[in-house]
């Protein structure tokens, strides 16, 4: 199995690097501005479409922490995503909590799941890891299908709370604002990881795991940290899903659409940097949203497939890679 044969990614020629604090601040400002703009548009559909796009931003960014930085392909993104969604259903039903604490619980569940996956699959690389995550997805789906408390295969209805948190006029607006904050936080976390020792260590183990181990990089610990963070963030991405559609059922929550999108978006945008998944997610999910509205929902997945194949053939380093090549 020839894993770790990715060519070394070209490094950003960054003359003046933005500090971590400044980047977090910039993300917060961008999030506030986006919320204000959406509030200004104020249509229910705009809220829905924006939430749809933003949930993919979180999912793609989370996938990229493990898949892009560390080079471990996770085909089970849908499992983590659905774990988040079902945490909201179960916790909301058991404790009657609102969305925000549910998101916290989803992060815990996803993190635990990620850590467990990491522990179980430590000895696996390349395709084996990918297949193990695919199996995890099937096992988890079977458990949910057989778990009557959250509706089993019939699915679960989730009723949106009647009281809307203060500055928002509708619940969709509130959900959308939550999604904006989550997306901004996800991007900031990804960028922080990328520019820290953790990110450097992950890049080292992506390029050559044995060499990294020999050079004293604690590959085992780094992998566990990456699977945990990535899993937690993917579950967070899924947590608002039941409230977005008021209904969630296993086949769609575990659907391959989430898995393929989580992989396609970072690959199309470029996996080496935090901006790649953001660009890919915005581009691809807007395209899908447009195709769903104008053509059909089957066609939108076809578009994802075609775009993915064209990109991995023609632009192996994604959109970012194209620009970087052109700039030099």
């Amino acid at each position, binding site marked *: 199995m020839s894993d770790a*044969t990715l060519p070394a990614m070209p490094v950003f020629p960054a003359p003046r690097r933005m500090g971590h604090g400044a980047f977090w601040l910039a993300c917060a400002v961008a999030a506030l501005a986006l919320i204000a703009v959406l509030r200004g548009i104020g249509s229910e559909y705009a809220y829905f479409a924006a939430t749809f796009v933003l949930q993919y931003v979180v999912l793609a960014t989370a996938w990229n922490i493990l898949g892009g930085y560390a080079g471990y392909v996770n085909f089970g993104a849908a499992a983590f995503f659905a774990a988040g969604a079902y945490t909201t259903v179960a916790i909301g039903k058991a404790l009657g909590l609102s969305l925000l604490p549910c998101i916290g619980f989803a992060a815990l569940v996803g993190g635990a799941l990620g850590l467990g996956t990491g522990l179980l699959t430590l000895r696996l690389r390349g395709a084996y890891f990918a297949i193990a995550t695919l199996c995890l997805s099937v096992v988890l789906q*079977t458990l949910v299908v057989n778990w009557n408390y959250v509706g089993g295969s019939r699915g679960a209805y989730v009723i949106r709370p009647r009281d809307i948190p203060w500055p928002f006029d509708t619940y969709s607006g509130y959900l959308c604002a939550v999604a904006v904050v989550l997306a901004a936080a996800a991007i900031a976390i990804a960028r922080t990881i990328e520019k820290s020792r953790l990110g450097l260590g992950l890049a080292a183990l992506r390029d050559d795991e044995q060499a990294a181990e020999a050079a004293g990089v604690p590959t085992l610990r780094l992998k566990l940290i990456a699977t945990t963070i990535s899993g937690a963030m993917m579950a967070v991405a899924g947590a608002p899903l039941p409230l977005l559609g008021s209904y969630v059922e296993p086949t769609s929550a575990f659907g391959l659409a989430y898995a393929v999108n989580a992989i396609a978006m970072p690959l199309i945008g470029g996996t080496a940097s935090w901006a790649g998944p953001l660009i890919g997610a915005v581009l691809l999910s807007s395209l899908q949203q447009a195709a769903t509205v104008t053509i059909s929902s089957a066609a939108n997945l076809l578009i994802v497939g075609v775009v993915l194949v064209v990109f991995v053939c023609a632009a192996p380093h994604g959109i970012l890679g194209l620009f970087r090549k052109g700039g030099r």
Partner: protein
Amino acid sequence: MDPDLALLLNGIVSGLLLGGLYAAAAAGLSISFGMLDVVNIAHPAFMVLGAMLVALFWGATGIDPLVLSILLTPAFWALGAAIYVAYHHFFERRGDEAIQGLAFFFGVMFIIEIGLVLAIGPEQHFADASYANTTWRLGEIDLPLRMLVPALVAFLAIGGLALFLRHSFTGRAIAAVAQDREALRLLAIDPVRIKRLAFGISIAMAALAGGALVVVQPVDAGSGHIFIGRVFAIVIMGGLSSLWGCVLAALAFGVVENVTASFYGPSWSPAVAFGALLLVLAVRPQGFFGRVA
């Protein structure tokens, strides 16, 4: 006979027959994934493509589905060879096959599946063989021909494949390319040509498995999903490049799934089977019949 025992025996026998179908599905992957190192995650999608085409042609002509699937194999061989040429050109040559190649086949799988939905529709398709409603009885054990005939055809095909790999020059070259490409080059054999040929064979096996599948159960465009995990599980448990390991693992997998389904309900059977694979991966990644890498 004790009813529980009869249920168990029937579960084991029909599990073995189901295992024949799984073996057909996994044998092609055992060549592409096990021997050629091409992680063809779209293999079950090709199988479903074959099954749908067989169902369509069966509706038009009424020829036996398994005969139709054998007639389809040359076309699928050509398709597989073409895909390998593209794969080699874009990924293998550049050394990018790890992530980009996986994503490529993931995309191909989606294109096949959605293409089928758009072209034929999302509903289930079936093909009734003339023997589909006959069941042989041996005491308390049922042998439905609907399961038996596809399983026998699958074993015949796998046996033929094994003979080809063991005894013909080209077949031995395929087995050799799995072990050492450079050594093959020294013998003046072009490894790319051999791999193209072998990948074509693996896709042709997918067409045959599709024919077997559509005899056993109705097929829709998304039927491949559940098979992705199954076939990879079987190939890994079987130790990757060993066809016999693959057959044994397929039989074991079929029995485990079927016995679980008859005692605890069908909704639990995937979890047991895939849980088994997760354990195998965690404890013994080289499979039960594989060489220690």
